[in-house]
Structures are given as C-alpha cells and as structure tokens.
C-alpha cells in the first residue's frame, strides 16, 4: 500500500516534468495570442527554462561574489528559515483556533457573536494587513523585548492558519451523538471532563483535515508576508530579488519557487505524521 503510494507520488512528479518539457517543445516559442489575449504562454528560455537548466543553475553559486554559497544551499537555508516562521505561525494559529472553538462550543452566545467575525476575517486581503501588523508590532517593545519583523510574518501566517482550525474544531466538538452526551450528563460529568473524554476525541476526524489546510495556509501566508514586508532571510525575499534578474538569469528564480514547494511538502508531512499518531481516533474522516 505504502510502496504503491510512493510510486504514484513519484509518477506524479515525473508527469509534471514531462508535461513542462513537452509543452516547451511543442508550443510556439512566442506563445499564441488571439485578438490581444494570450491563449498560450510563451515557451522561450526566459519564460520557461528547461528543467535541467534550473537544476544546473541550482548547483552554481548564487552570484559571482567571493564566498557566495551554492544556489541550492542558499535556497535550503531560506526554506528552513521560512519553515520555522511558518511553524510558529501554525502553532499560534492552532492555539487560537482551538481556543476560539472551545469558547464557541461552551457558550452559544459566543458562537453567535464570534463566528461571523471569524468568517469575515478571511475576506481582508493579506497585502492590506501585512504593513499594519508590522507597524503595530513595532510599537511593542520593552527593555528586554523587541518586536522582530519575522514575528509580524508569523502573525500573518497564523491569521490564515487559525481559520480552518476554528471552524473544523467547532464542528468536531459538536460531533458526539446526543446519546453519548446524554450518557455523560446522566452520570453528572462536568463540562471540562466531558470535553476531554468525549468532545476532544470525537473532533479528531474533523481536526486532521483542518490542520492540513491550516499548514498549507501558514506556508502561503509566510511567503506572501515575506514579500509584502520585505523580511530578509526567507523564500519570499529570494523570490522578489531573483525575480529582478528574471530576464538575464531566468533559471535562478525557479530555485526559491522549488524551495516554497519543499516547505509545503514538509508542512504537509508533519500533519500526516500527526494523523498517524492519532490514527485510533480517526474512524471516519470528514473533510472540513
């Protein structure tokens, strides 16, 4: 079963690579424009470098400066940095999301009051809140604590990550059958104990898919926020700077894009691992 999945996964990647090269080989170099509308994108080396050009470029130094690291090494470092920030964002998002769900489950009023705002929060465009978060953060500093820019990025990542968790967890906490809830009540079990013994285990089939979404959101939020506020060190910054040399060194900018994909895969992998740990509770998976 696992072997088959690995083979299928690898086959998917190969298929994508073949599709890229096939399109590049077959489609017209200048693309296809009908009535001013681009129907097929260009296939020139500047627009779509060969995969082997990208790989070859990754094994060369970032720049001609002395001591410049290999592009692949620099990309992996940046990916590790962004992954760390996304991890913090996800952690904060999960804590906030589960906390809100608990509050809404416990108090019906809280659900009526909070849920519309939680849904509304996701309609605010990221590029509008990124500079604001940075500005608010900069006002938070004491003698020993200074708000760093990476924290703003983590906050933005958590802003995207908490949403699926809050919604998924709430549905999960409400999931136990009435018969089970009545049983707990007839034994006189308090809210907290019935939450831990009944509602929390019952929420796992809802939480795992919600976490999968949250992890993906955290990664996207991190990279976009890095671009938006110009945080140095991560994948987002690499994407904008390498994009500047997109004409003269087109293969270079694909390296951070691959790095972003890698972060997404690692984040998804962590959630799969978590799902394996919680296997016992996942009798019926429900997509959030």
């Amino acid at each position: 079963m696992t072997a088959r999945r690995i083979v299928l996964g690898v086959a998917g990647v190969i298929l994508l690579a073949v599709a890229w090269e096939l399109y590049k080989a077959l489609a017209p170099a200048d693309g296809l424009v009908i009535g001013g509308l681009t129907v097929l994108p260009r296939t020139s080396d500047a627009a779509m470098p060969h995969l082997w050009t990208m790989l070859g470029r990754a094994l060369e130094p970032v720049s001609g400066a002395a001591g410049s690291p290999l592009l692949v090494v620099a990309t992996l470092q940046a990916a590790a940095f962004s992954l760390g920030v996304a991890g913090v964002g996800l952690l904060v998002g999960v804590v906030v999301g589960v906390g809100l769900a608990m509050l809404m489950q416990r108090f019906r009023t809280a659900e009526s009051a909070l849920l519309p705002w939680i849904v509304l929060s996701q309609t605010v465009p990221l590029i509008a809140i990124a500079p604001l978060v940075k500005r608010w953060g900069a006002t938070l500093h004491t003698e020993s604590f200074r708000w760093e820019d990476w924290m703003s990025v983590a906050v933005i990542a958590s802003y995207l990550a908490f949403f699926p968790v809050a919604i998924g967890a709430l549905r999960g906490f409400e999931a136990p059958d009435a018969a089970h809830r009545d049983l707990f009540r007839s034994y006189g079990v308090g809210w907290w104990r019935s939450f831990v013994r009944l509602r929390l285990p019952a929420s796992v089939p809802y939480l795992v898919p919600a976490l999968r979404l949250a992890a993906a959101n955290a990664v996207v939020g991190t990279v976009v926020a890095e671009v938006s506020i110009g945080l140095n060190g991560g994948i987002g910054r690499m994407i904008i700077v390498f994009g500047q040399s997109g004409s003269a060194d087109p293969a270079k900018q694909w390296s951070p894009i691959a790095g972003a994909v890698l972060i997404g895969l690692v984040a998804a992998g962590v959630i799969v691992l978590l799902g394996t740990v919680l296997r016992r509770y996942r009798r019926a998976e429900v997509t959030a």
Partner: protein
Amino acid sequence: MRHSIRIAASVGAVGIATALALTGCSGSTPGSSPSAGGDGELTPVTLQLQWVAQAQFAGYYAARDLGYYQDEGLDVTINEAGTDTVPIDELAAGNADYAISWVPKVLGSIEQGTNVTDVAQIYERSGTTQISFKDKDITTAADLKGKKVGSWGYGNQWELFAGMQKAGIDTDKDISLVQQAFDMNGFLAGDIDAAQAMTYNEYAQVLESINPATGKLYTPDDLNVIDWNDEGTAMLQDAIWADADKLANDSAYADQTVKFIKASIKGWLYARDHPQETADLVVKDGSQLGASHQLWQTNEVNKLIWPSTSGIGMINQDEWDQTVDIAKNTKDNTGSTIITADPPSTAFSNEYVTKALDELKSEGEDVLGTDFTPLTVTLKEGGK
C-alpha cells in the same frame, strides 16, 4: 506496548513542532547588526528604506558598517522595505526616524496631511529612462508616438508622462500603454517597444541578457536611451525625509538630523571613492544581487549624485520647482495629478544639510566631487 509506541510518536511530533518553533526564533535579522559594545551613549535611530538592501542605498550601509553613524553618537538600524511598504507612512507612524523616498511619491502624502520634510536630496539626477532597441528608432520623447510604451505605474510613471506630454503626445490616444513587470522579459520579447528602466537596475538587466541574434550579451550599442534629465522632465528621486513636527518642536531631533545627514553623506563620499569596497559591503549586508550588477549599480548611483552642483544633499530650487510643477500639471493615464496645489514651505529645508556640509567641509571633505570620474563596469551574464 502499543500504548508506549503511541507515546513515543507523540513525543516525536511535539519535538518536531518545537524544533520548527526554535528555527523561527533563532532566525536573526542581518539588517540589525549590533553596534558599539559597551558604549551606552549612542542614540538609537531607525532609517526606513524604500526597497530591499542594494547599492541604491550604499551610502547608508557604508555609514553604518564603517562606524560613521557611531562617530556622531547614533546607533542606526536600517529597515528594508517589501512590496507593500510605504516609507513615508512608517516615518509618519513613528516607526522610523528618517525615511528614504522619491520626492514625487511623497508630495501626494504631504498634500493629504502627512507632515514631513525633505532634509537632504541625496540624488541630484533622475535614474529613470525609457529604453528601446536601435531598430525602433526612438531617440526622443516625441518618437514614442504610436509605440507600445511600457510603464510600471505606482508612482513611477510621472516623468514618462510629463516627457510625452511636453513633446505634444496625447497620452490617452497616441500611445498604447503596456503595464510593465519587474523583469525585462516583455521588452526583450517585443511586447514593449520602449520600456522604463532605471540606469542602475533594469538597463543593466538588459545588458546581462544574451542577444539571441549574436549569442552574446546585448551591448549599449543595441539600445537607444531617452534620459529624462536631458528631456527636461526629470523629478527628484532618493531623498532623506524627516518628521516636520519634530523638527520644529524637538531641538534634540533637529540636532540629531544634522548628525544623521552628516554621517550618511560621509557614507556616500566613501561610496564615491571606493565603489568596489562599497559594493562588497552591500552584498555582506544581505543584498542577493550578483557581484557585477552590484558594482554597476554603485557606479550608476554615484553618477546620479556626482558631480554635485551645490554640495551633496542640497535641494536646488530649480529642480525642486520642476518636480512640483510636473506633480501639479501632469495627468497620467488615470487622469489624475499627484497634487493640486503647491506643497507647504515645510516640504523641504536646506537648513540641516547646510550645517552638515559646513562641518564636512571644515574637516576637509570634498562634497562637490567636481573631478568625479565613473568606472567602466563590465557586466556578466545574469549580473553574476
């Protein structure tokens, strides 16, 4: 037994999560390097740039790295900008003590009530050009008529529109305006006849690209350049902006402004006299641009400053007036102008830069750079 496996796995998962958290926490920002260990007398100052670290801001990095700010009693933190950072907003919000921005981009904010002052006009000339391949035969603004003209928009378009309108082109009907991306692919592919290009960036990007016809890099001989300085529609670019209210009410801030300008200018003097070392500094400070591109940028930026008409940082009334005039009277493709009335007298001041220049002159520094001779930089493919 199965139970213990599960616990081990849980511990593993928690461990990974913690590791993720720690990687995030240990990520240090290269932009804020510590300074002056032990010296508690330094005043913390924050400078907000208008883009990420690159030689465009070489003087400030040089002043920080070589201790010029420290010599003036300042501990300067340089904040880089992202795609959505508005430097003047950071200054107005109090998150930065000074900001670097183009004058036309700030004039609009001033009209809307942001009270800031241009205290040093570091770039005297404009680095914005409109470039085209020789075979298009576009050598003046008037030649843009009927052409596909590239523009970045977002406040970068005013010199172009002023230039075309000055040449009698109806910018609504006579040209087809093409939204230009950060890279030069649209220009190289022929989607754009004449593309916007900063001398220190995009122009170099073209020269770093392979010409498919020859298999070699493009050369300056392949290109025509419309320079807005020559066309008479240049607008003032990189300037140091300060908080106007604080300048008026806080004498410590006013004094600090003189010190900040003085040390920054010393950084720019260093960039003029040591372009290679300066380019290396900027790479060390986190710029990921290639080495030859970085040196090119340092050299081109020097050309925008030197030789200086009345001393680096001085705001020349005629150039300021030209900028304001274009900001008031030029309509872009959306039909709007930057400002509708003259800016207040607080919009610029030579008071602080004059003091800074006097101190530098008394220290024997050459603030005019009359004998400045630029380098000849050879670009490599991809700017490497």
